[in-house]
C-alpha cells in the first residue's frame, strides 16, 4: 500500500518536473546545446558556488531544458570494497528553467533523475543503498553480492524577482526516493527517502549583494537483512568502525538481527557575498551544516546501534574575469571540512513486562572521521561573439585531500593525504548552422603524498579487517592516473519552431592504479546518451 502511494507520488512529482522543464523550454530565446548549457552554468557564479537560490536572479540565466537517457557500463577492480566491479546503469535525466517573464521576472528551475543500477561483486554491506555515504553502523557480510538499486530524485528552485529593486526571496527543495535490493543472502530490501528545504534571501545594492540561506534535511532509510535459505547460516558483522565489529550469525535467532533503521536530521545555513563589475564578478560564501543520524535495530523495541554527528564547514570563492568580449578566465577555490563523530551507547534491555525496552546508561564518542579538502581551479573560456556556447575551454584543477580516521579505545588511526590534479580541454566544433560536436579530453593524476594505518583492535586476522578495512585503506591511499574522453554531437532546430535540438554522446573513463597492484586492476566506464535540448 505504502509502496503504491510512493509510486503514485513519484509519478506525480516526476510529471510536474517534466512539465516545468517543457514550459521553461518554450520560453527559451537562444538555441540550446550541451555546450551552451555548460557555458551558462560556468557563468552562473551564485548557482555554482552557493546554495542560495535567490542568487539565481543575479546570475540572470536564460532558459534551457535538457532531457536525456543514459546507459553506463562500469568494470574493473580499482574500487572501494563495497562498490561493484561489474555495474550497469540506466538513467533518465531532465532539467530546465530560467528567468520566467510570465511571473514578472521570477526564476524557476527543476530537475528530475531516475536511475536503475545493477551492481555486481559488492561486499561487506547488508544495510545501505549507498554504503559510502559516511555511515559506519551497518551490517556487513562477506558474500560477493548483486544489488539492484532504483533511485528517483528531484529538485525545484524558485526565486522571486527583485522586490523594491533590492530584495530577492527564494526557496529550493529536493526530494529523493529509492529502493535497493540485495540479491544474495543475507538480503535486505532497503527503502530510503530524503527531503530538504532551502529558503534563501539576497539583498542587493548597486554592484554588491549579500545573501543568507537556511537548510533543513531529513533522511530516512531502513531495511532488514533476511535469508531466503534458512538452512545455510549467514555470518556477518555489526560494524562499529573499520576493523571494529561484533561477529555473529545474521538471523532472527542469531546474535545479529538484520534490521537497520536510519533516521537523520540536518540543519544548516550559509552567508554569501557577491560583487559584479563590468569586467569582474565574484561570489564568496561560507556555510555550515550539522547532520545527526540515529541507527536502531528494531521498530518496536529499538536498540541504539549508534549515532553519527556530522559537522560540515564549507568556504567557497569563485570569480570571473571578462578579459574581452570573447574570453573569460574563471578562478575558484573551495575549502571543505567534514567531521563525523561516531557515538556508541551503553545499554541494557529491561525485560520487565511493563517496560520491555533498551535502557541507555551512557553514550560516548568512540570514533571520528575527518575529511579536509582544498580545491583550486582555473578555467579559460573562448567563445565566438554573439554565440551562447563556447568554442574552446581549458582548465586545471587541483585538490588536496586529507582523510583522518580514529577509533579512540583501543586506539586505531588512519591518515591519508592525496593530491589530485586534473587538466582538460574542450573544443566545440560547429558545422554550419545546425550541428556541432563537443569534444572533451581530460587527464588526471592522483598522487598519494602520505598514508599511515595503525590498527589496535582485536581482530587483526578477521576477514572483516583484512578484506574490508585494510583493503579500503589500500584503495584510499592509492596513486592512480587516467583520462576521460567525451564526445557529444548535437543537431539543433529539428522542429518546425526551430527550438529543439537532439544530441547523442559517448564518454569513456579509464583509471589505472599505480600502487597496490597486487590488489587492484584498472577500471573503465563507458557511458552513452541520447537527449533533447530545447
Amino acid at each position: 500500500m505504502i509502496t503504491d502511494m510512493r509510486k503514485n507520488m513519484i509519478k506525480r512529482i516526476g510529471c510536474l518536473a517534466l512539465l516545468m522543464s517543457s514550459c521553461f523550454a518554450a520560453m527559451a530565446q537562444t538555441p540550446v546545446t550541451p555546450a551552451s548549457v555548460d557555458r551558462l552554468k560556468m557563468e552562473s557564479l551564485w548557482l555554482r558556488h552557493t546554495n542560495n537560490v535567490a542568487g539565481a536572479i543575479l546570475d540572470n540565466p536564460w532558459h534551457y531544458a535538457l532531457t536525456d537517457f543514459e546507459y553506463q557500463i562500469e568494470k574493473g577492480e580499482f574500487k572501494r570494497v563495497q562498490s561493484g566491479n561489474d555495474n550497469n546503469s540506466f538513467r533518465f535525466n531532465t532539467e530546465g528553467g530560467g528567468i520566467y517573464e510570465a511571473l514578472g521576472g521570477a526564476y524557476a528551475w527543476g530537475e528530475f533523475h531516475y536511475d536503475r543500477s545493477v551492481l555486481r561483486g559488492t561486499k561487506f554491506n547488508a544495510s545501505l543503498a549507498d554504503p559510502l555515504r559516511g555511515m559506519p553502523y551497518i551490517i556487513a557480510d562477506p558474500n560477493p553480492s548483486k544489488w539492484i538499486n532504483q533511485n528517483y530524485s528531484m529538485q525545484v528552485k524558485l526565486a522571486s524577482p527583485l522586490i523594491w529593486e533590492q530584495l530577492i526571496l527564494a526557496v529550493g527543495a529536493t526530494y529523493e526516493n529509492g529502493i535497493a535490493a540485495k540479491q544474495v543472502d543475507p538480503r535486505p530490501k532497503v527503502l530510503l527517502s530524503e527531503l530538504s528545504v532551502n529558503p534563501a534571501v539576497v539583498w542587493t545594492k548597486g554592484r554588491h549583494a549579500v545573501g543568507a540561506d537556511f537548510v533543513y534535511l531529513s533522511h530516512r532509510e531502513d531495511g532488514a537483512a533476511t535469508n531466503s535459505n534458512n538452512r545455510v547460516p549467514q555470518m556477518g558483522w555489526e560494524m562499529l568502525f573499520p576493523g571494529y565489529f561484533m561477529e555473529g550469525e545474521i538471523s532472527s535467532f542469531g546474535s545479529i538481527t538484520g534490521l537497520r533503521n536510519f533516521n537523520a536530521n540536518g540543519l544548516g545555513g550559509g552567508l554569501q557575498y557577491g560583487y559584479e563589475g563590468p569586467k569582474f564578478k565574484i561570489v564568496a560564501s561560507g556555510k555550515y551544516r550539522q547532520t545527526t543520524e540515529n541507527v536502531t535495530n528494531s521498530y518496536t523495541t529499538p536498540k541504539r546501534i549508534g549515532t553519527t554527528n556530522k559537522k560540515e564547514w564549507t568556504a567557497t570563492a569563485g570569480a570571473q574575469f571578462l578579459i574581452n568580449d570573447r574570453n573569460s578566465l574563471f578562478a575558484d577555490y573551495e575549502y571543505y571540512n567534514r567531521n563525523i563523530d561516531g557515538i556508541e551507547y551503553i545499554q541494557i534491555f529491561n525485560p520487565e513486562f511493563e517496560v520491555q525496552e533498551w535502557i541507555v546508561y551512557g553514550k560516548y564518542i568512540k570514533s571520528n572521521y575527518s575529511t579536509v579538502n582544498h580545491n583550486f581551479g582555473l578555467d579559460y573560456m573562448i567563445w565566438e561573439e554573439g554565440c551562447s556556447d563556447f568554442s574552446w575551454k581549458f582548465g586545471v584543477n587541483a585538490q588536496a585531500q586529507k582523510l583522518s580516521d580514529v577509533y579512540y579505545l583501543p586506539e586505531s588511526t588512519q591518515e591519508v593525504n592525496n593530491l589530485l590534479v586534473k587538466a582538460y580541454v574542450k573544443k566545440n566544433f560547429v558545422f554550419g548552422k545546425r550541428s556541432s560536436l563537443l569534444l572533451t579530453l581530460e587527464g588526471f593524476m592522483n598522487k598519494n603524498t602520505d598514508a599511515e594505518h595503525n590498527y589496535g583492535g582485536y581482530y587483526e586476522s578477521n576477514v572483516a579487517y583484512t578484506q574490508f578495512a585494510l583493503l579500503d585503506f589500500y584503495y584510499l591511499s592509492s596513486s592512480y592516473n587516467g583520462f576521460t574522453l567525451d564526445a557529444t554531437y548535437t543537431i539543433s532546430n529539428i522542429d518546425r519552431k526551430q527550438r529543439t535540438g537532439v544530441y547523442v554522446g559517448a564518454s569513456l573513463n579509464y583509471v589505472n592504479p599505480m600502487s597496490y597492484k597486487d590488489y587492484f586492476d584498472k577500471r573503465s566506464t563507458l557511458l552513452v546518451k541520447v537527449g533533447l535540448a530545447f
Partner: protein
Amino acid sequence: MKKIILLSAVVCLFSCLATSCIKMMQEANEAEKVHMITVSYKVNAVTGFVPYNGEAEPDPTFQTKGLEVNFINYQEGSSFKATVGDNNIVSCSLTPGVYAVNVSGSVTSPKGTYRLNGSSLNVPFTKDITPEDVASNPEYTINIRPAKVGSVLFSEIYYCGVSPYYFRDQTYTIYNNGQEVFYLDGLCFAQLHPNIATTNLPSWPEEDGRENFVYGLVVWQFPGSGKQYPLKPGEAVVVAQEAINHTVNNPASFNNSMAEWECWSGNALRGNPDCPDMPYIFWWSPNKMQWLTSVFGAAFCIFRIDDAVVNKSYWEQPENWQVVIGPSSTRYAKIPADAVLDGVELLTSMSALNMKRIPGFVDAGGTSVETTYIGKSVSRKVIGKRADGTPIYQDTNNSTNDFQVNDSPAIRRDGQKIPSWSRANAL
C-alpha cells in the same frame, strides 16, 4: 483567511520539525569522548539465600581473595583480567561498556574441593567505581556459589539434528567422572528456561531473590528405589528423545537404540517399546508429539534435592514453581541453586555468548555447534585416562573451555563403559 491558516500550518509544521531536529542534535552534542575508567567489584562467596537487592552475608569459610576475574565485553570482543584483592574487592581498568563479569577458581577444604565460579551478566560500566562505592552499594557485588566438584556430569549432547530437518535423534550422555559410585536413582534431568538463548531474559518475582534458582521447563527423573542404578566411575548412560536406529529414517543420522532411557512424552506412534521410558515429573504444558529441545541449543542441568522427596506432587506445591512476571501463566520448576550437579548452556553460535541465559554457577560459559541440522555434537575434552582406560573429562564449570565440537555424535565416546545393569549389554 485560508492563506493565513495555510501559512500558519506550514510554520507550525516547520517549527515541530526544527524542534525535534535540534533536540536530536543536542543529544548528540552532549556525548563525551570515551576514556578509560577504573571499576571495582566485590566478589562474595555465599551459601544461603541471596535477596533481590543482592545484599547477602558472605560465607567466611570460602575466601575469594586470589580468584581470577574476567571482565568480558562481548560487543567489542575485549576482555580485561584482574585478581580479587583485600576485602574481596577486585579493581580493573577498562573501556566503558556492557560487561560480563566472570569469576573462576576453586578451593579445597576438608569437606572437599569446591568450584568458586560465578558471573554477573550485562553489567553496564560507564564511570569510575571506587572501593568505597562498592562498600556502600550492593549493586557492585557478585555473589558466587561454592559448588562441590561433582562426579556426575553431561559428557556429550547431540541436539542440532541432521539435514533434512531431522530432530528425533537428540541424545544426552551422562557420565561418572568421579572416583566413587553414583546412584542415578531419583536424579533429575531438566531442560531450562528460556529454551533459546536470548538477550530478552525473563523477569522473575523479587521473592525468588537473585540467582537462587534456575527454572525448568521440563524435568525428567531417573527411576529407581535408591540403589537400583549404580553408575561406577568411567560408566555412562545414554538418554534419548527416541531410542531407535535413526539411519532407517535418515541415513545421515545414527543409531541410538541402545540408549538406557527414552524421554517419551506420550506419542503412541513413536518410541522404542523395548527401551524404558524416563518419566517426566514436571512439564506445565506437555507436548505429546515428542520432547523436542531447541535445535538452536537449549540449556540443561542435572540436579538432586537431598532434603525432599522430589516427584510430581513436589512440583505441584506453589513454593516449588514460579511464573514469569507478565500475563503468561506458564509454570516453571524452581530448581534450588545448591541442588545443581552439572549444567550446560548451548548457544545458537559462540558469538551469542552475550545471550547467555543461565547463571554462572550452573555454567560460566556456553558451547555451540554453530548451526542447525548439521549432525554435530558437543562433548567434553578428555584431560586424562584411568587405569581401566576410561576418560577423565575437563570440568571447570565453564563449557566454553570444557567442551569441543564433534563432526558426528557417538555413543559412549572415548572408551566410556556400559553399566552392568544396562540393556545395552544385551544388544
